[in-house]
Structures are given as structure tokens and as C-alpha cells.
């Protein structure tokens, strides 16, 4: 009650804001529409199919997968690395661009941060799905060994998850207040939700200062956490005695790879929302162009890292590396490897580099290709190494890894779950930050480092 009265004090200001909520942004919160419902139902069906596959796997054990004693990790781990790589998106857009004062980021920060949150929300379960004994999950707390990189990963992932949730939520508070106070005909539960999430925000200078401070602190904190997550995930492989994994470059390699696939994910999601939510005004060609250039840069950097991974071993041809390289370059993984090289580097590199294709369709195509290429890259990181053990496969055995329908179903279910979460989020909350875009529009040209400015001058 007191909160409501407190909120109503500066109501003049709030209602002025309300009037300013652009109708096109408000429209994104409207009913789902026929196509939207079809999509949602389709995605939920896939999620259910995946859940069914998981129940099957729980019943039959990991024998339901294509994994075996030699190929002891497979699709689930690949998905895990892919998902947390995608999860780098939010950090890059919202923290890095914020810290460098790139004010054009404002209309895409929430979209990116939401990718991070949902990717991380699904990455954790991927590990659970991969566990032989998910029922013993609590052993990680009861008997947890801090010396194990898995524990580091658990802590890092959860810290990043919590940080990302916070970092997604903080800039949403003023928007929640705007929605709480606006005149749009929201259902009562929804308005209540906005009221609770608004935390009594009424947009005075002190609140703005605090919010800005909190966001600035989060932007700085989240960066090392993100880097740690990717590095530690890389170390899960790098700290083993396996050719192809045991590499000093693997930590930075994962960080760059994550940035690369994160930006590609942001561009892809941007394209989807631009089209389906009619956000052309906010997700402009300029956004695509800038992110496209960023993607091109990372394409070059990641290509450089990847080159380093292969040139050394190929030139030196250490005994243990020979079968690995053979399997990749002219063995069972050749097709995957060269597909990855084409789809992950060559085509997107060309599309982004050539001025004729550096337009929205070209950039979006490139980013979709990068997403696929990066998933294949994770396959190439995980599987071929397992195919090249120090001791040869014993005579008469034929170990290979072919993912089963159960694994593919669970994978599809996870990606569909990402879609469901994202769709629900985008329908419930403004996918483009209302107050931040409103704040930017008049001042964009003149305030390059708006992040450091007290925001009240802008908003109130």
C-alpha cells in the first residue's frame, strides 16, 4: 500500500513517461497472434518430445545414447559448450559495449542479456542430462572437491547465471515502473507482476543514480565472471592429457569462440524480432552493420586461434597427434571439419567482408551460418580427440560415436526450450528497453559516454 502511494507521488513524471511509451514497443507486449501461438505450441511439443526422450534415458541409463567407453562425452557436452558460448552474447553487448560507451547498444542490451540468461539456464541442465547419476547431484555439495575443475565450473556457471539474471533485471526496473503506470489494458496479474518487479521505482534522481551505479558495477563484475566461465569450461578439456585438448591456447580459444557465437546469436535473434515484432525503428540497419563488423573481426580472430590449434600439431606431427589430425583431415570427421570451416569461417567471412553483402540479409545469413558452424566446431573439439587415444583401440573392437535419437531429441528439446523461454519473455517484458531507448534518442549524438552520466537529466 505504501509502495503504491510512494509510486504515485511523482506520478506526473511517470505519466508523462507513460504517454511516451512508443506504441510500437508497447505492441510487442500485445496478444501472441495466430502465428505466435502456432510457434509456441510447436516449440512446446518439441520440448515435450525432448522431455520424453530424457525420461526414456533416465529409465535405460546413458546406454540410450551413442556414447561408449572411448567416446565418453557426446552431444550433451557439445550442447553445453555451445550454449554457454551463446551465453557470452549478453556480456559482450551489455557490459563491453557499455564500458566502451557505445550508446547504440541500448536497444539491443536486453535482447542480448536475455539470450545469456536462457542459454545459461539450459546449459546447467545439459550437464545434468549428461550425468550418469543425476540423482546424486547433491554429492557435489556434500562431497565436493574444490580441486576439481568441475566444481570450478559449477561455481562459475552459477555465479554467471546469478550475475546475468541481476544484470538483465536491473535495467528492467524502470521499464517495469513504466508498464505498471501505463494505461495499456494489461491483465490484473500482469500489472501486479510489473508492480512487484518495479520495486517501488518512481524514477527520482536518487534511484537513477543508484541504478546507474549498480549497472556500472555489474558491467565490470560480469566481465571476469564470463571470461572465467569460458576459460574453466575450456580447462575441463585443457587439463586432461589428451591430444587436441591439452593445449595452452584452449582457454582464450573458448573465450573468443564464445564471443563469436554470442554475437552471431544476437544478430540472429535481432533479425527474428525485427521482422516479427516490427521493430525496424529500434533494431536498425546500423545495428546490424556494427554488429556485423564486430562479427567479422571475431571471425578473423577466431580463425587465427583455430589456425594456431592446427598448424603446430600438423607441422610437428607428434606421435599422439597424428591419428587425431588424420581423423580430422582425412578420416571420419573430415566432412564435419570442412563443413565447419566453410560454414563457420569462409562463408560468413566473405558475406561480412564484401561490401555488397554487408547488408541485413547478408549479415543475418552470416550469423546463422556462424551459429551452425560454431556448433560443428564444438563437435570437432569434443569428439575427434576421443577417437584418438594414446593406446590404440583394442583389436577387434569398433568404437565410434553416432548420436542416437534420444540424444538428438533431447538436443532439439533444449533448443526448443530456449525458444519457448525467449518467446514468453519477449511477450511478457519489453524486449527493447523502453526507458533506455527513450533516453538515448534525443541525446545519442551528443552523449557518447551516456553510461557515466547521471541519468535523471535525461529522463526526468
Amino acid at each position, binding site marked *: 500500500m505504501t509502495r503504491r502511494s510512494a509510486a504515485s507521488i511523482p506520478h506526473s513524471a511517470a505519466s508523462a513517461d507513460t504517454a511516451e511509451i512508443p506504441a510500437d514497443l508497447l505492441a510487442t507486449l500485445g496478444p501472441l497472434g495466430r502465428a505466435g501461438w502456432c510457434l509456441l505450441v510447436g516449440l512446446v511439443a518439441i520440448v515435450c518430445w525432448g522431455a520424453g526422450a530424457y525420461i526414456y534415458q533416465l529409465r535405460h541409463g546413458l546406454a540410450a545414447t551413442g556414447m561408449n567407453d572411448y567416446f*565418453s*562425452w557426446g552431444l550433451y557436452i557439445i550442447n553445453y559448450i555451445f550454449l554457454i558460448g551463446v551465453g557470452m552474447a549478453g556480456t559482450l553487448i551489455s557490459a563491453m559495449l557499455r564500458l566502451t560507451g557505445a550508446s547504440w547498444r541500448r536497444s539491443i542490451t536486453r535482447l542480448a542479456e536475455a539470450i545469456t540468461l536462457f542459454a545459461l539456464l539450459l546449459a546447467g541442465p545439459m550437464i545434468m542430462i549428461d550425468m550418469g547419476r*543425476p540423482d546424486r547431484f547433491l554429492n*557435489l555439495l556434500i562431497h565436493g*572437491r574444490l580441486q576439481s575443475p568441475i566444481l570450478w565450473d559449477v561455481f562459475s556457471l552459477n555465479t554467471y547465471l546469478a550475475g546475468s539474471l541481476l544484470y538483465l533485471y536491473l535495467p528492467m526496473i524502470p521499464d517495469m515502473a513504466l508498464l505498471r503506470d501505463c494505461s495499456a489494458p494489461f491483465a490484473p496479474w500482469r500489472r501486479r507482476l510489473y508492480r512487484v518487479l518495479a520495486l517501488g521505482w518512481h524514477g527520482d534522481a536518487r534511484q537513477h543514480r543508484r541504478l546507474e551505479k549498480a549497472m556500472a558495477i555489474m558491467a565490470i563484475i560480469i566481465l571476469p565472471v564470463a571470461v572465467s566461465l569460458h576459460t574453466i569450461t575450456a580447462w575441463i578439456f585443457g587439463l586432461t*592429457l589428451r591430444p587436441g585438448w591439452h593445449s595452452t591456447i584452449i582457454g582464450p580459444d573458448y573465450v573468443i569462440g564464445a564471443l563469436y557465437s554470442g554475437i552471431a546469436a544476437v544478430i540472429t535473434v535481432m533479425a527474428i524480432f525485427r521482422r516479427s515484432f516490427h521493430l525496424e525503428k529500434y533494431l536498425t540497419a546500423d545495428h546490424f552493420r556494427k554488429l556485423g563488423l564486430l562479427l567479422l573481426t571475431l571471425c578473423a580472430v577466431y580463425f587465427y586461434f583455430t589456425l594456431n590449434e592446427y598448424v603446430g600439431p600438423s607441422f610437428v606431427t607428434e606421435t599422439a597427434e597424428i591419428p587425431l589430425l588424420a581423423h580430422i583431415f582425412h578420416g571420419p570427421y573430415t566432412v564435419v571439419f570442412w563443413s565447419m570451416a566453410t560454414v563457420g569461417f569462409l562463408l560468413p567471412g566473405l558475406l561480412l567482408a564484401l561490401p555488397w553483402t554487408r547488408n541485413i540479409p547478408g549479415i543475418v545469413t552470416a550469423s546463422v551460418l556462424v551459429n551452425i558452424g560454431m556448433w560443428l566446431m564444438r563437435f570437432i573439439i569434443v569428439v575427434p580427440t576421443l577417437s584418438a587415444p594414446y593406446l590404440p583401440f*583394442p583389436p577387434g573392437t569398433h568404437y565410434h560415436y553416432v548420436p542416437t535419437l534420444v540424444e538428438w531429441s533431447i538436443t532439439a528439446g533444449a533448443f526448443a526450450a530456449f525458444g519457448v523461454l525467449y518467446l514468453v519473455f519477449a511477450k511478457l517484458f519489453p524486449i527493447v528497453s523502453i526507458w533506455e531507448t527513450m533516453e538515448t534518442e534525443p541525446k545519442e549524438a551528443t552523449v557518447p559516454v551516456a553510461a557515466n552520466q547521471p541519468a535523471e537529466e535525461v529522463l526526468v
Partner: protein
Amino acid sequence: MNLDRRHFLRLGMATAGAAAVAAAGFETATAAQTPAPGNSGAAGGVSGGNAGGKTMKVMTTDGQLLEVPAGQARQIKLPVLSSADIRQGIPGRRFVMMIDLAKCDGCGQCTKSCGQMHFIPPDRQWIRVFQMQDSPATAPYYMPRPCFHCDNPPCTKVCPVGATFKREDGIVLIDNERCIGCRFCMAACPFNARCFNWGPPNDPPAALAEGYSPEHGFPRRIGTAEKCDFCPDMARQGKLPDCSSGCPMGAIYYGDQNEDAVTNSQGETLRFSQTLRDRAAFRYREDLGTQPRVYYLPPVNRQYPGPDLHSKKGDQA
């Protein structure tokens, strides 16, 4: 205290009811607890009928059935190994293995014996015989590979829950009741010594009857890793591991580094340290730094034909 096990009289019954008691793994059965109505051997009256002529049947550790006056039977507690005992290992011991590659003819009997003893399903092997050839011009040879029980074990280092652990007696074991099945240890072991229970285990009754212990690794637990355990349960009884005792060539020696003696199936006991020196023993992939507790004697002066590797080039390292 471990000697007690050999000398005590296991109190058991020839009847089904008592077999169930034994199956529950327990040696703490007493004369007072045993009687089941209708048993011919056991006395119906439980009340301290010592002076009377009542007798009861007991089984010795050698499997002999004896009939003794009920009053003479007394309750004996076997030294049941606590999980702390199992994690600590056998005090004062440092188990080692030495495999003479010159003697190994690749018959695979070690794998078979081990498989029988540990009820290993056919899809996996704890000790595995590899066909090796170091370079095209050098002779091929067979190399049995148990778990190396490394002194710098990469597998235990990465375990997030301490389910696999290194003991003071040098043995690396797995607690299948703690393992969460993340398989990091499998990725970490450069020798692929670890197997996984991918599906539900199908243990024979004999395995189930023994009761689980990390010292023998069965009955199996789904979704957990397993591997060669260096047979500490056999060592506690002063016996060789089954791979060693089952080797018809006497190629696998096992013993205690502290005693500086290793023994094979032929009863041949060698001075461990001196044999290593005299016969230029080596450990597999010393360069990886895992410091295995399994040593190999080089395949020199062999009395048998080596593996023919020319037809299967893909198997070579």
C-alpha cells in the same frame, strides 16, 4: 586384524534360511540368532543350552561343514571394513605390478580370469591386452594394460566428488556409491583404463550376494565408472589378483613395494627393485608424468611368435 577373517569360523547354516543370512553378508550371525524352526541341525531352543547335547552346524572358511556343540559357538565380529578403512588402504603396503612382456603371448587369460572374478560384463575389460608395435621395423608385442594405479593420478585429480581416490597403499579405487557419472575421470585417464556402466547392470546372483565394496567393485551401480581395482580384497587374503594368478605364462607379477618382492602365478618371487634395474624395466608413457605403479619388462628373447600386425595396421599406436 585382517588375519582374523581366515581363522574364524563362519557361522552359517546349510539351510536356505541361513543362506539368506549369509547372503546379507554377515558373519556376525550367532548361535542364538540362527535357529529357524524346522531346521534339522540347529537347535530349536535358543536359551543358553550349552551343557546339553545340542549341536549346531557351522561352516569353516575352507567350506567344511562341522557339527559343534552349540555352547562352543560364540559370536565373532568380523573386522568389517569401514569406508574410512577402504579410503585409507591397507596400512604399510605399497602395491605394485610388474608385467614381463617377454612372457606375454597375448592369450588373454588375464582378462578372462579378471572378468570372472569381478563379474565383468562382456562389453568391457579391466585388464586389456593390446597389440603393440613401437615402430615399423621393431618387433610387435603384446601388452596387457590393467589400471596403472598412478602415483600422480589424473583421474582422481579431476573427480568432483572424491568418488575415485588414491590410497596409501598406492591403489586407486572408485566408490560407485558416490560417483555421479560425469565421466571426467574417463576423459582424464590417458590410458582409457576406465569403463562406464552405461546401462542397468545385470549382475549374477553371486555378485549380488557378495555385497558392494569399492575393493571389488561389484555389484555394479548404473551410471558410474569402474576399472581395475588391483584386487585389494585378494591382497587382504594374501592372494594374487586373478589376472596374475590366471596368467599361464607367469607374466604378471604382483607384490608389495615395501617388501620389495613381486610374485607371479608360477610361484616365482623376484626382488622387485633389483629386477627393475637388471632387466631395464620401464613404465608406459613415462612422459605423461602420471607415474604408474605398473612396470613392464621389455619384450626381449621371446619364446613365442609375436602378434602379426601387418594385416591390421590400424591397431598400431
